[in-house]
């Protein structure tokens, strides 16, 4: 067997209270697309940070083409030929593409030369990108191209990609995959981190699976089913959300002709948004982040006030009402950002239960807080939604992402909403928590509530929603039944190509 590009032997890294990587060994061959699989908290990030020189392992060693390799900083890793595309982009909105690329380089050439090189690389690899455009005006997919091209300019031997497709439309995923296959054909290796198993089966020829910091197996993902891979990752068999057939009831939430400016810089303006959700229905709203999701949620929760008639709840105009009044009526929301928006990070779970539960759960009488009631409510959320925490006195920020998300969603569901709007309910949540949250949303709809799920995860929408609409550039497409909807159609809707075919509908 030939010498692998990168061999990792017995790598261990521990943080106070947790062993993030425990004696992990695997090897990435030349020209190989290698998948790194695992739930949140399995140790994937720690492992790639060690490869990229961001952290140093406690023990174990790495070999680069047979030579000892121990980068103490990212620039050393880059010098060896390792490049990384992070899940969260580090780009400046107010600078253009070439300037952003220059900022990430160790010794950038003059901007004009760089722009020419960016144009050449983007042409060679089929990643169209204009080096003169402001990053603030780019879509998420285009921003990712900036990051990828920044890496390719370094002529890397190993490209690490952390959850690259979470922000892409299906069409953009296809473009990305073509590029990655081209890179492999040139003999470069790719370490591909994802939890989307179908993608891994389509792209990768080797997979390393981590669970709780330990290596649990390696396999060729093309020879395994997605279900087998998922069970390797989670360690138990997965419960598939399910829901009996049902008939939708009366219209509970109705939005018509909603135009609304975003409060934030580089936010998206909502343009003539209209939707209607019935009792018992789950409406999935797909779209890449930054297309108006936050604004739509804010307009429905009452954080952004809309014209009075633009939002109706059970026929009543509520556009001008604030969050408290809407909650009192039965229109509840759970925003995307768990820490800082849905929950106050430094406050206890009891206080966070009070945050939205105060009115419907009657935790406040004549302005005075019933702390015992609030604690009891928090405890009910914790036990009913299996939130792993020592108790309701713990600060929200001490919980893992999945547990806090279960708490946030559970807090709203236990208040018996008639309409529940959630944004990215399972983003960054491990597979078992995600399944629990999806099941809870389906049970809620089954019990007669109308549910709006705003999500970037199309698989999630297809799994739980009855109907689908796409949000693109602040516009919402017409609603389609999920049954019989193909990935191609969804991709076209997400790309904003609603039109000729839709006019008849």
């Amino acid at each position: 067997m030939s010498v692998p590009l990168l061999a990792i032997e017995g790598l261990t890294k521990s943080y106070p209270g947790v062993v993030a990587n425990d004696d992990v060994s695997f090897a990435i061959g030349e020209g190989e697309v290698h998948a790194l699989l695992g739930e949140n908290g399995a140790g994937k990030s720690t492992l790639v940070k060690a490869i990229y020189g961001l952290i140093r392992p406690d023990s174990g060693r790495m070999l680069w083409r047979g030579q000892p390799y121990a980068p103490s900083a990212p620039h050393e890793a880059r010098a060896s030929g390792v490049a990384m595309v992070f899940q969260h982009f580090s780009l400046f909105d107010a600078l253009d593409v070439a300037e952003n690329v220059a900022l990430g380089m160790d010794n950038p050439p003059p901007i004009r030369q760089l722009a020419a090189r960016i144009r050449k690389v983007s042409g060679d690899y089929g990643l169209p990108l204009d080096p003169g455009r402001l990053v603030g005006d780019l879509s998420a997919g285009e921003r990712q191209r900036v990051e990828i091209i920044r890496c390719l300019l370094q002529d890397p031997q190993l490209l690490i990609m952390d959850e690259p497709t979470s922000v892409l439309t299906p069409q953009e995923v296809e473009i990305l995959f073509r590029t990655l296959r081209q890179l492999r054909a040139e003999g470069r290796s790719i370490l591909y981190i994802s939890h989307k198993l179908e993608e891994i089966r389509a792209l990768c020829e080797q997979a390393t699976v981590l669970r709780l910091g330990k290596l649990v197996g390696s396999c060729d993902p093309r020879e395994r089913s997605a279900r087998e891979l998922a069970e390797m990752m989670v360690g138990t068999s997965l419960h598939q959300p399910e829901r009996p057939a049902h008939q939708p009831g009366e219209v509970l939430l109705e939005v018509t002709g909603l135009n609304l400016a975003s409060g934030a810089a580089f936010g998206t303006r909502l343009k003539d948004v209209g939707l209607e959700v019935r009792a018992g229905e789950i409406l999935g709203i797909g779209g890449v982040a930054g297309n108006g999701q936050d604004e739509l949620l804010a307009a429905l929760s009452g954080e952004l006030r809309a014209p009075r008639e633009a939002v109706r709840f059970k026929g009543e105009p509520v556009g001008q009402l604030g969050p408290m009044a809407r909650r009192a009526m039965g229109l509840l929301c759970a925003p995307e950002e768990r820490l800082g928006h849905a929950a106050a990070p430094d406050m206890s779970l009891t206080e966070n239960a009070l945050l939205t539960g105060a009115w419907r759960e009657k935790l406040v009488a004549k302005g005075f807080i019933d702390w015992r009631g609030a604690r009891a409510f928090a405890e009910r959320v914790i036990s009913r939604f299996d939130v792993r925490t020592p108790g309701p006195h713990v600060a929200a920020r001490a919980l893992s992402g999945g547990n806090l998300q279960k708490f946030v969603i559970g807090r709203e569901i236990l208040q018996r909403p008639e309409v529940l709007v959630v944004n990215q309910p399972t983003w960054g949540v491990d597979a078992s928590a995600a399944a629990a949250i999806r099941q809870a949303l389906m049970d809620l709809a089954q019990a007669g509530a109308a549910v709006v799920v705003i999500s970037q995860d199309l698989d999630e929408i297809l799994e739980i929603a009855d109907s689908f609409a796409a949000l693109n550039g602040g516009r919402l497409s017409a609603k389609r039944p999920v049954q019989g909807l193909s990935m191609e159609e969804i991709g076209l809707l997400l790309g904003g190509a609603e039109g000729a075919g839709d006019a008849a509908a």
Partner: protein
Amino acid sequence: MLRLEKRPQPSKFWNLATPVLAVVLTMIAGGLLFAALGKDPFIAIKMIFWDPLFSQQFAAYSRPQLLVKAAPLILIAVGLAVGFRAGIWNIGAEGQYIIGAICGAAVALAFFPAPGWYIFPLMVLAGAFGGWAWAMIPAILKTRFNTNEILVSLLLVYVAEKILAAMAVGRMRNPDGAGFPGSRNISQYPAASNPELIAGTGMHWGVVAAFIAVIFTYIMLHRHILGFQVQLAGQAPRAARFAGVAPARLVVLCLGFSGALAGLAGLFEVAGPARMISIDFNSYYGFTAIIVAFLGRLHPVGIVLAGFLMALTYIGGELAQFMLGLPSAAIQVFQGMLLFFLLALDVLSNYRLRLNFGEAA
């Protein structure tokens, strides 16, 4: 290598221990400062913290002063703490204190020399109103035009000082005062004075008001939904908006509350210990109260303790100036160091210090 590591939750222990540690560090650094000035640091520190309370020579005079000085500090600091918890920074309590005193004194001077039980209560209302109205200027500018309340409230202090000077030599000047600047002596006008309620204790109506304010604020912050919203807005503004807190309403409420309490403090001072409106009536209680609020961890009970401690440094500082010839600036530096150390040490509540040698790059 020294590293800071974020704690999963803020440490309760350090939250309480940092004020104590800050006081100790201030004593050490202050001692070095006094030594550099050629004074014996041990005597100076003892004179500031010990002698005002326990020395045979000074305690009889100093002890009542403790309540007199602590009351306005506590009254103002409790109001400020509510705003600070909400992330609304009223730095201009000094100005609200001055305007409150002027408004209260104006009521007294308007009625002079008529008797009447209603005059003092009216003055109290006028004092609170004056402070409230002065605080409404930054509040309205912030909610309407999004100005920075820190700058506006701070700069209004200097406006208030000019008004004070104009009053002392102008409209409020004592017509029987032979042309000297300063108003009539309000503390000698029985219907308007704020007397010592129990002889030899320093207890006056301002002390009563401070304790009522402390209890009121404690209940509001810990039992009432308004207090919850205040803290929510300070810690997580987006979550507060999601919960339904209207930021503009909170700004008006917090600035108004702290302004009214500062105005009250000014009124009790002018009708009592300060006796009259004069050019140098204000003694920077409004600024020192900021230190008191933070030293007391923005908690009403903590503020009571911090208020007494700061009052002690005032009294002891004066004593040290008088007995040891320490410059007054040295005492102000000493008080400022307290806030400095406290804010610096606050890092320990949220972070853990770690020494490690293995990973030094």
